[in-house]
């Protein structure tokens, strides 16, 4: 069901922003790793996937990078603008990972969105958080406490991958979401959350195909989380 979503609050720093929507309907038990399909009232026609960054009392917060038409529209919309969402879609991370382990959350750019929700819902499963960004300007979107997890290349010269290397050990799991080059640099056993162009978000249209060692899978229906070693990266 499409739920009306009214833009209530926005906090923007350059090409990133936190957007809170008031929903005129409920998301049923949203879990970290799940996403909503968000649609503008006219253009673009397509609904597009965004991970849940936070959800409470019909207030949905998304962490969005401006890259194109829909995200551009969200950034420039006045408060009060109406969008539509449906979801949650996709599998909760907790259903796909080893529940016994603790995890280092490795995020890059807008990929931190589902990780934030994960650490809100499952704080005891979190060993450490590394949220990587290029520029310092990102700081203004976060509280001082949150900023401690930021790895800002412009400041330290280091990427999340560099920092990860210093502390990584086999007993700890890795749960990562971010750009493909980042994901490719992770240990084989990492869980990686993939993005793909999506049509339906529910497994019917076959747009979001990803090739794995067990055949072609769908990011929306089988993912978004996969074992890094299972992915045939050349196909992406």
């Amino acid at each position, binding site marked *: *069901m*499409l739920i009306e979503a009214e833009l209530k609050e926005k906090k923007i720093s350059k090409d990133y922003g936190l957007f809170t929507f008031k929903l005129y309907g409920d998301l049923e038990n949203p879990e970290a790793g799940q996403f909503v399909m968000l*649609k503008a009232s006219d*253009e*673009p*026609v*397509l*609904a597009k996937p965004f991970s849940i960054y936070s959800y409470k009392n019909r207030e949905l917060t998304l962490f969005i990078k401006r890259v194109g*038409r829909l995200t551009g529209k969200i950034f420039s919309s006045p408060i009060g603008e109406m969008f*539509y969402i*449906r979801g949650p879609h996709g599998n909760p991370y907790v259903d796909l990972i080893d529940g016994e382990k603790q995890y280092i959350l490795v995020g890059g750019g807008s990929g931190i969105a589902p990780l934030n929700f994960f650490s809100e819902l499952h704080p005891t499963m979190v060993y450490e958080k590394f949220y990587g960004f290029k520029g310092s300007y990102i700081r203004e979107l976060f509280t001082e406490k949150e900023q401690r997890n930021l790895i800002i290349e412009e400041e330290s010269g280091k990427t999340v991958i560099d920092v990860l290397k210093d502390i990584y050990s086999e007993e700890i799991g890795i749960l990562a979401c971010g750009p493909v080059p980042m994901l490719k640099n992770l240990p084989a056993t990492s869980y990686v959350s993939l993005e*793909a*162009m*999506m*049509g*339906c978000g*529910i*497994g*019917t*249209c*076959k*747009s*979001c*195909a*990803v*090739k794995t060692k067990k*055949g*072609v899978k769908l990011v929306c*229906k089988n993912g978004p989380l996969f074992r890094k070693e299972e992915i045939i990266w050349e*196909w*992406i």
Partner: protein
Amino acid sequence: MGVDLSVDVFGIKFRNPIILASGPVGFGFELMPYLDFSNVGAITLKTVTLKPREGNPPPRLVDSHGGVINSIGLQNPGIEGFVEEIAPRLKELKTIKIGSIAGFSMDEWEILGEEMDKIKEIKIIELNLSCPNVKGKRRWAEDAELTQKVVKIARKLTNKPIIAKLAPDVTDIVEIAKAAVDAGADGLAIGNGIQAMRIDVETGLPVLKLKTGGLGGPAIKPITLAKVFKTREALDVPIIGIGGIMNWQDAIEHAMAGASLLGLGTAVMVDPEAPVRIIEGIKAFLDRKKIESFNKIIGVAHKGGLNVH
């Protein structure tokens, strides 16, 4: 007021004219939590080919102003997989099932036709003559003779109603439509996506890995609408109007142009409940206009419009 939405075509009674077009809804099962199938007139299943196909490498979908371009490339389990895994479950979908097939040679069409004919749950067979997304292949529906040949083969194999799904982006759709009907097609689906592409200006490369794909969505509505209109002008055969139907107004436009059934592709992909919304809208429209049956508006644009009646 009880508005009658039912449509009688191919000797089959559809409870309403809104059907799901082939592809965006797959074989329908994943849609069940979102859509009560007993609300729609029919579902056209995802096209099945002889061999299993994993589809084209991604990206397979990109949007454009007013539309969505896809190059899925007929990802499907092949006819054997379909017969074994999908067919037995079709009962779960509480509406009429239209099976869609696509062959790459005459032999393939023959096998596909035979197999589909055997499946009891499939009431109608749609020949996808117009997939815009198969690498290196011309579309059957670009050529009247080829269209005729394929339909003839299918006609010999089955007594089920046959629908020929045509490409809207041909010079003269009426010529192709006539060929299909002459060869024994009971109806026409107009039409598939229109060949289109986007280029990523940052890389200088086509966005879709296949380069081109099929454009659907509101952008193409006025184009396919004109094709439905022209075909209906020339031929008296049931037409499934497809192309950019996103709301009840679009649906009514297609019906007025001459379509008896209305297929949703992009709309249902974007919003699984679109069919229900559109059906409600059609009902309200007919109610307001005091038209007691949907049948009354089919093709009225050819007959002087609504006020003549």
